[in-house]
Structure formats: structure tokens, C-alpha cells
């Protein structure tokens, strides 16, 4: 176990492979989010047609000093999922991660597979220095050369696939890499994802709906809330199973920060956002988080 802490009436234990065990006896009364998704830049040179963050080349980076100020009250053990844009293009990314490590914050990062050739060396250094734990890689093709290199130094690589964009059968190839961990993301009709949404996307989501059960118990599979909804993942679980493995709706234990715009939000696709200047992070979370009713 790498960390154990109490968050209000909830005990959280986090292990070296990323396993999290949350225990509580009544409706969770949290003091702070367990994890926060943070966008630190809008800059990205890939220009994906479906990018819900509408990232583009020469877009703005976040002022990380402002970010560090608003997250200063977070205790050790909280997880941050740092993304963008291309977060590795931020000039102060290493400084940010160094500070977070010193505070005991668990930093994870998301990047695109196509950036591995350019940023692979930096990522390796970040892993070797224990600045980051989990590395999420958005898979866009089946050339896994750089991924194989990265896997030699970390067991915490998570392949991100988007239902609606990725071919569900690519999971078969990822399994061949060994020790595959896969996160299936729902298709976000947000940002450029609104205009990109078409019949091909619909058909692709449908193929995910049908074929995803092939991979149960063959590979470590994760789903975000949007994928759970779009693929009706609940249909595969017993009530006991759902209660045990469903980690909660968005904004019950988690939240989102757009550090570029300096705003808080429930999720990255939420329209309702609150400026850093109007609230502290803890106040925002405690006053607005979604109510969670114990069954």
C-alpha cells in the first residue's frame, strides 16, 4: 500500500498497482475530492477532429502558479489526472510534478500515442523519478513500438480507447502486449465532438456495445461514466458486483479543473463552471458535489 487516508468518513487505501479500496459506513461526507482531472494546457499539435477540449497548436498554457495555489489544501494521497491538450508541451510540467510529489499528491498523466516518439524520453524520466504513477496513453494506431519501450519501466500504463472512435478489436492486439490495462471512454459530444458526431460514430459505438463483453475476465477493463452509460455496462453486473465496483457518478468523489481558464467544474464536459476567484476548491467541492445515497 502506498497511502491510506481518511476523507471525512471515508477510508481510502491506494496500492502500488493503482488499486483503490474505499470503505465507508454511511453517506460519504467528503472534505476533498479523491481525484481531480486537470487540464493544464490547450496546446496540442495533433488537431484531432473529435477533440472535446478543442485543443490546437499555439493555444494557451495554464498558469501553474495559480493552479498550485488552488490545490494547496489537498492532502497527500489525492490523485490528479493531468491532461490537456498535450500536457507534456507545457514548459513547467516537470516543476509542477516535482512540487506535487513533495506534497505526497499522486500524479498521473494522459498523453497521445503519437507523442511518444517526441516525449518518450521525458516520460521515462518522470516515471523513473517517481514524479508520475499512472500513464494514460490515447491509442490511435496499432504501432506499439514506443509503448513496448515504456512498458519495460512501468506496469502502470493504461491504454485509452474511445467508444465511437477506436476499433473495439484493437483490444485483441493490446492484449498481446501483455499485462494490458484498458480504459474505455465514452464519446463526448462536446467541443469538436459535436460536429464530428456522425453515423460512423454511432455504428462504432454499437459495435462496442455488442463486442466489449468478449474481453471480460481477459484483460483489465475500465470504463468512465459516459462509456458506462453509452454501452450500458450495468447490464453485465449483479447488484452485488455493481455495488462493489461502481466507483460513483461524476462529481460524487471527483471533479474537474480547467487550469487554463482557471475554473472548476463537475466534469470536463460540464457547461457550468466556477472561477477560481469565486471560490476555494474545497468550498466548491463540498457545496456542489453530487449527493451520494447509500443503498
Amino acid at each position: 500500500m502506498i497511502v491510506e487516508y481518511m476523507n471525512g468518513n471515508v477510508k481510502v487505501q491506494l496500492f502500488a498497482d493503482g488499486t483503490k479500496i474505499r470503505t465507508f459506513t454511511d453517506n460519504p461526507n467528503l472534505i476533498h475530492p479523491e481525484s481531480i482531472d486537470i487540464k493544464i494546457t490547450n496546446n496540442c499539435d495533433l488537431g484531432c477532429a473529435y477533440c472535446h477540449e478543442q485543443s490546437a497548436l499555439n493555444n494557451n498554457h495554464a498558469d501553474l502558479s495559480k493552479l498550485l495555489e488552488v490545490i494547496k489544501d489537498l492532502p497527500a494521497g489525492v490523485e490528479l489526472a493531468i491532461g490537456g491538450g498535450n500536457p507534456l508541451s507545457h514548459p513547467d510540467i516537470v516543476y509542477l510534478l516535482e512540487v506535487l510529489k513533495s506534497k505526497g499528491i499522486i500524479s498521473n498523466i494522459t498523453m497521445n500515442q503519437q507523442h511518444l516518439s517526441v516525449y518518450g524520453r521525458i516520460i521515462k524520466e518522470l516515471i523513473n523519478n517517481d514524479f508520475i504513477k499512472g500513464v494514460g496513453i490515447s491509442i490511435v494506431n496499432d504501432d506499439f513500438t514506443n509503448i513496448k519501450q515504456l512498458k519495460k519501466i512501468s506496469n502502470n500504463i493504461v491504454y485509452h480507447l474511445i467508444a465511437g472512435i477506436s476499433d473495439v478489436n484493437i483490444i485483441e492486439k493490446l492484449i498481446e502486449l501483455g499485462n494490458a490495462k484498458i480504459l474505455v471512454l465514452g464519446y463526448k459530444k462536446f467541443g469538436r465532438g459535436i460536429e464530428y458526431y456522425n453515423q460512423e460514430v454511432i455504428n462504432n459505438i454499437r459495435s462496442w456495445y455488442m463486442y466489449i463483453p468478449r474481453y471480460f475476465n481477459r484483460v483489465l477493463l475500465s470504463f468512465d461514466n459516459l462509456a458506462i452509460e453509452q454501452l450500458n455496462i450495468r447490464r453485465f453486473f449483479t447488484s452485488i458486483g455493481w455495488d462493489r465496483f461502481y466507483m460513483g457518478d461524476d462529481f460524487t468523489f471527483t471533479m474537474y479543473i480547467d487550469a487554463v481558464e482557471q475554473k472548476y467544474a463537475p466534469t470536463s464536459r460540464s457547461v457550468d463552471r466556477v472561477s477560481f476567484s469565486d471560490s476555494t476548491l474545497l468550498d466548491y467541492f463540498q457545496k456542489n458535489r453530487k449527493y451520494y445515497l447509500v443503498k
Partner: protein
Amino acid sequence: MKLREYENRFSTGNIMGAIMYIEGKMSEPLALRMFSGEDVAWFTNKNTYPAGKIIMVRIDSNDLLDSEVTGFVAGLYPLMEGDVICLQDNVEEVVTRVKEGNGSPYPIVTKNGQYSWKDVLKVKKKGDVEKIVQVRQGVFETNSSSTHSISIEQVDSEYLLDVLMPNWSSDKNDGIEMNILRIDKNFGNLEFGWEYKRYYNMNDKIIYAYLYAIGSEVYKHKSKTEQIIKERVQMLEDLLLEHSGAISVQWYITNDCSKETDECSFGFIDHASLCRNNEIFLNKENLRSFLFNKKSYIEIDNDNDCKYCYDDVYA
């Protein structure tokens, strides 16, 4: 006390745990476990409630009205002072009194008001401490646009339902992939006779449910038979489509041997098993559990040498 006074509770099945005596039907009082709202009720021996063997009894509304409530069993119901009831909109209230046996349509009293049984969504018993454990398996939170909300690797059958993976018949129609769930003699067992056997296989259970739904002997009210068959087949098909992602279900099974063809096969359920298992069609969740829960099974037996010698069990 006559059950007429409890009619509102029967309409929702919320009277679980009432000890009843049905004149002319039972030699001793039994605990009512469930009432379907149609014409079938399930009882359990009052001494072993709630874990006791379920006894299925066909009763109609007149039987119910002639029944007598002789008491309540301890356990989930009735509510006790200090229990917490969960109402709509996440409202929780502490029970201050339960008006047992007086026939009130609002038997549950809290300091804020009075409620009927159907107002209650959940009950937390006084003194219960529910420990919730939630697990994210084997991954750090790398999702920078939302969160890992389910993360599983190797999980037990206790947690995952069976997955419907039939042989898909794919076709193209205006660029949209067509997937049809074909259920025929190759899909599973067609004959549920009077041998001694258990069927855990999902495909067998699907065929069993279909044969059960279309078995006209099942239905007491002959005038409604056609409608009930239609509703149950629809419930079954809706569930199969939702679970599999197919766009239609095609049945190549008949329970009428005169309609058997090379393509459409004859299947049957022994008469001793018909009429007795409406519980699986009580609602969609019961049917889902029966079909897809790995622990649910059909137990085939016969009525030649004992009174209650078969059971269909769903987890």
C-alpha cells in the same frame, strides 16, 4: 382481520412477512413472501422465514379477501420504532410508530407525517451498520476528462452476469450493421421433461423462459392468455436485445408439434412445471436474474412421487 383492509399493500407486494391463514387452502398459517399482482402468491414456512423454502400457491383475489392476517414475523418487516425509512427524493425519516393491524392506509408514522408501505423505497433497520466497500482494480486515475468508474480484471461469478454471445448473423442494410439473435435447436436444450436435472446454462434458460411464456396452459384467465403471452415474450425479447445489442430476436422453436418443420423445432416443458413459475416474469429484473445470473438454475423433476418435487430457482 380480513385482508380486504390490506388491499393497498397487496397491490404493491409490500406486505412481505405477514403471517396469513387462508381458509380452506392451508392447514397452518404461512408467511407471505411475495404477491405477483396477478394471481399467484409465494409463501414460506413461517418458522423459517425469510430463508425457508418457498411454497407457491395459486390464489385469486377472493381467496385473498377471505384470508386472515394472524400476525407478522420478525425480520425485515414490520418496521420498528427507530428504523429509518427512505422516501422519494432521498428523504430519510425515523419511524416513531407502526400502526400494525388496524387497517390504516398510512400505517407508518414519523414525526413528519404518515406514510403507506408503497411510499417506502428502502429501510435501514435500527442499529444496522452497513459497511460499503468499493474497489477500483489495478489502475491509477489517468483519465484527464472524467474518471474510471468501473475497473475490473478477474472477477467472480458473484459479480458478473452471463454474457449473451450467440452466433451472430450479420448483414448489411444501408450501411448499418444488422445483427439478429437467432434462437433455434442449436442454441440450447429444447426438452424440459421429468428427468432429474439442473440447467445452469444461460441458453437453456432462455429457451425455457420462451417455452414458458408461450405455454398457454400457464394462464388461468383464458380470455387474457393471448395478451399475457404477448407481454411476456415482449419482456423476454426486450431483455435479450438490451443484453446482447442485437436488433431483433428470431425464434425457431415451437411448443406445437404440428408446426414443427426442418427449421422450426419442437420444444416443451413438462406439465408439472408449467403454471408454477410465473415469478420469473414478475418483472424485468427477476427475468434478468433468472436468465443471466450464473447461480440461477432450472431444476427439473417430476410430480410422480412427492408433493413439491421440483423448483425453479433464481438468485
